[in-house]
């Protein structure tokens, strides 16, 4: 238990390889610190008065404020105690460096590949390592809460996680403040790059998954969820566009902007009171729609079930137009939601004001039979689409289901993924489709489920409130 011993070799962390500037070794941190303080000792006049450029000599040209400046030391040199002093001198904001953070200029931006909840996503290349990465720009337009909490969550959770099926946060970099960005630097999260997202793949009809490949996808998804839940985190935004797949066929769960940690599972005596305005509507489980705030990892499993169905149907199975409608769809799918099937419903205040469909028989298997032939897959889904979250299968239980252990066994996805020559992202797919379907009705009536028909991409955007699409944020907490 000696921390020195066990923590010692851990000091060479993965992040070091990405940005040697963060090196913790005494000599280099010392030198970077010195350079930092050197820049601080340099004195510039405020940028608003005289915007300094990098080429501009430090301060001799600077118009003295208050006209009282006389003493100016050379940059980087400790000024000697002067007889005559100038209070009014201070540093320009544009001169602030982030000595511990990689600069944005180390990456070369290639193109936009997505629009996340808190900003745009770009494909980029690290100039040093030549590694392709994804840069997520942290939008600071909403000045209400300072540094966006979604980004904070992503940073704190993903720095702690390390699993093959969870997207890796490699680094955080910042662009320098300059007069191009109103002296505010922009932060970027640097992720490993994945070639496809599941929504993009499914909308590309040329991509067809074999049974074994479907199993592999699901197995990896549940494996990632198992890791996340074991780490006591709720993802809270399961949907196909948040599932990434790289060209080695590895699936990765991404976008932890809504994720949160929980310290204990809520009990009767000590219930959790989380916000229930999470998860994109179509993937939202019944307990959230009924107003439960003491929810469990089971909410993510419901979403995983929806995603699993989509692997066959190719479009979301429960496309409600609002919360009430979503509950109705779930009712016709899983049978009436009554206290018999979900005892806790009597404790849910919001549920009392909702009129729920009555006397509908549960019919999960039958309604999916049209699309899914594998009886074991149907059985697994039947155990996932359980209204009562306490009776829903957990990630571990799902991974132990016979579905994953019977022929055809899960099959490596790498050959298929390597055969794809183009990236498939929901963002790029929907952009090209939107131009194709400019004449299509904006919200076509959409019976559920729509097999093999990925037409309602508009609809998708409607249901998947991505930033930028008509400013539609209704489903989002933030």
């Amino acid at each position, binding site marked *: 238990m000696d921390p020195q011993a066990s923590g010692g070799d851990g000091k060479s962390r993965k992040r070091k390889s990405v940005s040697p500037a963060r090196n913790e070794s005494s000599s280099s941190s010392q030198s970077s610190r010195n350079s930092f303080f050197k820049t601080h000792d340099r004195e510039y006049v405020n940028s608003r008065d005289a915007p300094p450029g990098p080429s501009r000599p430090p301060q001799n040209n600077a118009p003295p404020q208050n006209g009282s400046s006389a003493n100016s030391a050379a940059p980087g040199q400790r000024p000697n105690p002067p007889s005559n002093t100038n209070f009014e001198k201070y540093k320009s904001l544009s001169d602030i460096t982030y000595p511990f953070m990689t600069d944005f200029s180390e990456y070369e931006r290639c193109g936009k590949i997505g629009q996340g909840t808190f900003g745009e996503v770009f494909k980029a290349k690290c100039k040093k390592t030549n590694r392709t990465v994804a840069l997520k720009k942290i939008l600071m337009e909403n000045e209400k809460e300072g540094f966006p*909490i979604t980004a904070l969550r992503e940073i704190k959770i993903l720095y702690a996680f390390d699993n093959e099926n969870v997207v890796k946060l490699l680094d955080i970099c910042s662009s320098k403040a300059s007069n191009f960005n109103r002296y505010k630097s922009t932060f970027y999260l640097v992720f490993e790059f994945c070639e496809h997202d599941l929504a993009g793949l499914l909308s590309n009809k040329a991509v067809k998954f074999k049974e074994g490949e479907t199993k592999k996808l699901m197995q990896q998804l549940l494996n990632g969820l198992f890791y996340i839940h074991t780490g006591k985190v709720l993802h809270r935004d399961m949907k196909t566009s948040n599932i990434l797949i790289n060209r080695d066929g590895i699936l990765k769960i991404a976008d932890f902007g809504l994720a949160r940690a929980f310290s204990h599972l809520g009990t009767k005596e000590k219930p959790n009171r989380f916000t229930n305005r999470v998860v994109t509507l179509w993937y939202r489980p019944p307990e959230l729609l009924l107003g439960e705030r003491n929810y469990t990892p089971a909410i993510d499993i419901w979403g995983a079930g929806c995603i699993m169905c989509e692997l066959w149907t190719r479009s979301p199975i429960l496309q409600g137009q609002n919360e009430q409608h979503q509950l109705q769809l779930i009712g016709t799918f899983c049978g009436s939601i009554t206290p018999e099937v979900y005892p806790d419903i009597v404790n849910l205040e919001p549920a009392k004001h909702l009129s729920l469909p009555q006397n509908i028989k549960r019919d999960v298997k039958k309604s999916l039979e049209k699309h899914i032939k594998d009886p074991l897959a149907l059985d697994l889904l039947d155990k996932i689409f359980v209204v009562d979250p306490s009776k829903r299968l957990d990630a571990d239980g799902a991974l132990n289901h016979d579905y994953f252990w019977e022929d055809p066994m899960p099959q490596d996805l790498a050959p298929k993924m390597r055969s794809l020559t183009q990236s498939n992202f929901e963002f790029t797919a929907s952009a090209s489709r939107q131009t194709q379907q400019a004449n299509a009705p904006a919200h076509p009536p959409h019976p559920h489920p729509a097999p093999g028909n990925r037409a309602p991409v508009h609809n998708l955007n409607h249901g998947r409130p991505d930033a930028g699409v008509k400013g539609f944020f209704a489903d989002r907490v933030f």
Partner: protein
Amino acid sequence: MAGNFWLSSHCQQWLFDRQDLQRDRQIDYAVLTEDEYQKILIFYAGVIQAIGEQLKIKQQVVATATVYFRRFYTRNSLKSIDPLLLAPTCLYLASKVEEFGVISNSRFSTVCQNIGKANQGSNRLNNQFDPVVTSLLLAFEFTVKNKYGFAFQQEFPYKINNIFECEFYLLEMMDCCLIVFHPYRPLVQYCQDLGASLDKKEPAQMDAILQMAWKTVNDTLRTDLSLLYPPYLIALACLQIACLTLQKDFKQWFAELNIDLEKMMEIVKVILNLENRTLSRDQLIPTDFSLELHLFVHRVFYNPVLKSFTACGSTLLSIFPSRWIRLLSTVSASAGCC
């Protein structure tokens, strides 16, 4: 989040040797003695604690904020950013990271009433800012004026935008390492274990020990311990102190632990030293804290620049010529420092 401490950034990047700290603080130690430096940090730990109590913020959040505060000044000189601005920023960031983000409107208005700013509060609530940061700011304005008026000769000078901007620097300087492990959770676990090995008849005894140890953990926030030792060791040291104070003998239990007892005793020494030297618990302010010293730090370092910043409507980065520090040392020496 459970997380693994041994793999965390806390363990791998944010535990230092004493020599590390010494070296990192060179710039400040050139002008302040170690003792003076500590007093300033203790003072602000007290301010953070006071605000936390006023807003009824969870101790976990307060602890995280205090550790952020220390981490920042480990990498930076005290002169780089005004501690009076960094303190609310740390609290705000910690409240977001620890998911304390939602403060209800009713609670918010209670806060405003408590500090006699009901009108101002409701006005501010209508503007576009997050209630948490608004109430933080109000609480700081209030506390700085009333409780710590002796140390600051002017009203709290910062605005919400300053906090937002400072948040960036804080995040960056901490290398975006946000998760802090505290001794509280291991403490509770150790107490459970200790309780199990005890006579079942005396649960009250165990409660007293836990309470005492918990308070001691709160006190450790005023030291460098969180930068030097892993939280489980701090928890054990606090437990040890509680047992000694309440005169319970658990030597056997401690002896069976597979830990570095010497290190634990180092921590115990630091805590006892802290209590001897400075703390009178009710006051939050170390008794022999040199007010003049603090006043000088604040007046000499920050005010002149502040004036110009507010004049430009711009912000915070108060960068000071190091000559002011030298000046300070001569002035405080001549002032006799209490």
